[in-house]
Every structure is written in C-alpha cells, then in structure tokens.
C-alpha cells in the first residue's frame, strides 16, 4: 500500500488530477448545503454576467437561475451517473469475461460474438436510441451508458482469465478440488484486479462525456440539472451570453481530464513493470 502510494505520488499529473477530482466531489456533496432549494428556481434577474453580483458569482441564465448552483448540482449528477453506470458495466463485464475466459468452448464463442456486436455498433448512437425509447430518466441513462461500455471490460477480463488459468497456482487450486466459483473469486480475480481498476477509472471519464452528450441532446433526466443540459439550453444564446455555455463545459473538461490523469497514475502505481516498456 505504501509502495502504491509512493508510485502514485511520483506521477505529478495524477496528484493534480486527484486534487481536482476531490474538489469536484466536495462541491457535489456540499451542493445542497451551499444552495438550498432547487437549481431550477429563478432567483434573480435573467442574464446577469459573471462577477456582476457577489451573490451570483457565475451569473444567471435566461430564466434567472443561478449558474453557480446549477454547476454544483451538475457535479452531483455527473459523478452519480458516471460512477453508477461504470460500476454496473464493470460487474457485467467481469461476469461475462470471467465466464467466457474460464469455460472456453462454445460459451466463450457465443459471449465473444455478443461482445463484438456491442463493440462494433456506434456506442453513442446506441445510447441515444435506448434513452429515447425508454424515455429519459436516471435509470435509462445509467442503463444505456452501462450497456454500451461493458465490452472492453469483458474482453480484458477474458484475456486475463485465459492466461491466468494456465498458471500453476490455479492448476493447483483445481487439483485440490476447489469449486470453479471459489477459484474465480479467490484465485484468478484478485490477480486481474489491477487491470480492471485502471480500465474502470478511464470508463468513468468516458461515462461523464457520454452523459453530458445525452443531456446536451435533450435526453437528460428532467428532474436533474446537469452540465450537458446547461450547455444545450444556453446554445441558443451563444452570441449574447457565451459564458453560459463556456462555464459548464469547462467543468466537464476539468473533471474528465482529472479522471484521465488519475487513471494514468493508477496505471503507473499498479503496473510498475509496464513503465519500462516504452512509455504507456
């Protein structure tokens, strides 16, 4: 653990990323305390520019809603949806990859065909179609993002299983009569964990981008203020009030960048031997 921290901290970018990410998490958690009441509420004159009034530091939108409050609640939505959908995708991906890699044979073939199918079709278009058909809500959005993002995990886990299954300690576990379920959970999976964590961290970043794209297209949950929605709503006022679109986009950019940096740091810390092989 100490080694892990030391290696992680050696990557300066990862430390900066972690700081930004913790800041976003802090804002998301404190949003209800900082801004009581809904971010949808009209609180002041419409179209106030940032820094015009100390009470509304980031200005207001065309309906007089506080942009700072929207940004804070948007952080909540982005983190919530991206983390849950990634968790679902990882569980599904690990399950499918583990079954395919451990069993092999026709089941492996079938599962890999399905995985390839989901990897081939355009992911964002699929997510758009799914959310539209199942009507936009937090469940359909999480479900759609999870459904289009599990394949890389499944492939990764499968290949890890295929190689780990041949290793002696796993063979030994088979010989002493451990059941497949226990071998998977106690012998193979812990050894595949570091690659899964690295992939998952990058999936959170992609999930944030996908969620923002969906809500930009008007497919967000109607009860939740999100960054993508704010940009989409402000788009018509681009000429008059550019800051309304710029600010939430900056928030997305920083959050996604921070998570990508953390991902690289995790990759350095969890797979130190990879460092020496080229760069990545």
């Amino acid at each position: 653990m100490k080694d892990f921290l030391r290696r992680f901290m050696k990557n300066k970018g990862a430390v900066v990323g972690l700081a930004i990410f913790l800041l976003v998490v802090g804002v998301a958690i404190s949003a209800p305390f900082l801004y009581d009441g809904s971010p949808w509420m009209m609180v002041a004159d419409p179209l106030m520019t940032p820094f015009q009034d100390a009470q509304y530091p980031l200005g207001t939108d065309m309906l007089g809603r506080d942009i700072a409050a929207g940004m804070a609640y948007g952080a909540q939505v982005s983190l919530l949806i991206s983390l849950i959908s990634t968790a679902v995708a990882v569980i599904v991906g690990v399950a499918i990859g583990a079954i395919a890699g451990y069993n092999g044979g026709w089941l492996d073939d079938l599962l890999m065909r399905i995985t390839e199918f989901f990897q081939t079709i355009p992911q964002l278009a699929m997510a758009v179609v799914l959310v539209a058909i199942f009507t936009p809500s937090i469940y359909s959005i999480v479900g759609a993002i999870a459904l289009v993002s599990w394949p890389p995990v499944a492939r990764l886990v499968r290949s890890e299983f295929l190689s780990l299954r041949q290793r002696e300690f796993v063979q030994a576990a088979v010989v002493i009569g451990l059941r497949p379920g226990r071998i998977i959970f106690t012998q193979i999976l812990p050894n595949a964990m570091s690659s899964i964590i690295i992939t998952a961290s990058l999936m959170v970043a992609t999930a944030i981008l996908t969620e923002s794209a969906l809500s930009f297209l008007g497919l967000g949950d109607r009860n939740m203020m999100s960054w993508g929605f704010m940009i989409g709503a402000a788009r018509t006022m681009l000429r008059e009030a550019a800051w309304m679109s710029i600010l939430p986009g900056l928030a997305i950019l920083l959050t996604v960048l921070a998570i990508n940096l953390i991902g690289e740091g995790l990759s350095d810390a969890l797979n130190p031997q990879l460092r020496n092989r080229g760069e990545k």
Partner: protein
Amino acid sequence: MNILFSAISKLAKALGVIFAVVVVNFFLIRLAPGDPASIMAGEAGASDPQYVARLREQFGLDQPLLVQLWSYIKGILHFDWGFSYRMKLPVLDLILDRLPATLLLMGAAFVFSIVLGILLGVLSAKTRYTGQRRWLDSVIVSAALVLYATPLFWLSLLAIILFSVVLGWLPAFGMQSVGVELTGWAHIKDVALHLILPTVSLGTFYMAMYVRLTRASLLEVMGMDFVKTARAKGVSASHVMRRHVLRNGLLPVVTFCGIQLGQMAGGAVLTETVFGWPGIGRLMFDALMQRDYQLLLGIFLVTSAMVVLFNLLTDLVYRLVDPRIEFEGGK
C-alpha cells in the same frame, strides 16, 4: 484458400451484426412508448377502438411475435423501412437524402484526424527518441491530453464563438450560403468553407486519440531489439525511424481506424446538431425532438451498417499493410 475462407467469415460476421441490429430494432420499436396502431390512428385524427383494431390487423400487429419479426425483416430487405408520419416521407428516402452530407463530413474529419494525429504523434515520439527539442514532446502530449477530455459539442460551440462570432472568418451554420444560387467552383468553395468548422470540431477529439496511440506505439517499437541492432550497426536515426520504426509502429493505428469510425458516427450526431449540418446526425436529432421512433431506428440501422462497412474496409487495408495477417487469419 485461407484468404478466401477468412474473407467469407469476415463477411458473414459483418452481415450477422447488421442482422442483429435489425432484430434489436424490431424489439425496440415495440418497446417504444405508445402502440404503433394508436399512434397512427392519432395521426389520422381518429381514435375509435374499431379503427385502431382495423389498423392493427392491416399492419399485422395482431400476429404472433415471430411472424411479425419475419415480416419486419422482409420489409427491411425490400427497402421498406417504415414511414415517418411527422415528415410525411418514407424513412429510407429521408435517410438517403441526408446520407451524402454525413459521408462528406465524416470523410473530411477522418482524413483531418488521422493525418494530423499521426504527424504530431510521430513528431513527438521522434523528439523523445533523438533527445532534441524535448519541450515539443511535452507540448504535444499535454495538448492531446486536454483535447482528449474536451466534450465534442462544447468544442464545436467554442469554435463558433471564436471563428464565427468574434473573428467572423467562417460560416457557423448549414452546408451552403442561404439565398444565393452558386454553381461550379463557387459552389464547391462555398461548401468547403462551411465544412471547415464541423470537420475540425469533429476531428479534433479523434486526432488527440491518434496522437496518443501513435506516440505510445512508436515508443514501444523504439525500445525493441531490432531497432537497437539497426542503430548499433550504424544506420542513421532518421533512416531507422522511417524504415524500421514507422512501418511497425503504425500497424496498431490502422486497427484503431475501424473502431474510431464507429465512434465518429455517434459524434457526428453532436457536430451536425451544433452546426446545423444537413446530414443523418441532424436528422437523428430532429427525430428525437419529434419522438419519431421509426426514423430514429432507421438511422441507427444505417449508422451501424456504415460502421460495419468501414470495419471491413479497415480490415482490407490492414491486410495490405501487414501481409502476415493472412497466415493467422486462415487457421
């Protein structure tokens, strides 16, 4: 023989994916809110139960599910992709009308992203390899990292603000100037000007991806023994770069093209929406706004078919670039 076999199996796989999309579409249209028959009745302005029942019978909605699926597949094969009741036109006509604009945009963005991405990736790997101008490597890597995290639709908006609103250099909306009849070169120039912003906005994210991929792949090859051998026997650094490193290091980039094109098809929805580009992405946004599910699923099918086709083409290119594949593919 092996080549033929693997080509056929690739083709079968591709058709399998398209078939699966058709089946998925069939079930999705049934899950869409609202019974198709009552929607049609609503469109016709009559909603008495008898009329709805007659419609159900007429469109086979009272048949068993498998029979319906079969007739749906037959319809797709006969180019009957349903009717858009909002636009009063067959779905396929609408899509085919818009497809060329999307292909133009995607083609331009693809060329932009791959050319610039590989160029910058090679440049940054080279500065690292030769040890000269290391700062250039840092600049390229940082820029790629930031662009990789930028939401596509937001970048499009920023481009409009800068190049259209503030500087006034480029048009921000549509595919051609409104209100003027242009022909010949003037027309081509007009479309090209309109194409610049959407192309750069759509291509930038993927360019960043290519930079990272090219750089990582080249650096990995640079560390390999055959490169060291070549250097040790006195071959110049630039020659090693050209003949040894590039040839091997760019292979993963080709594989990636197919995947990227698939993602780009989704990204086109966002770009076309922002720039009012009259392609199928914009059509998809309109279909969303109007809850036109037949049209939405039709576009999804076309986009998927496009991606499958691109993947086949990438595969073909890969075979040309790396003949070793044939031996592995056929086994």
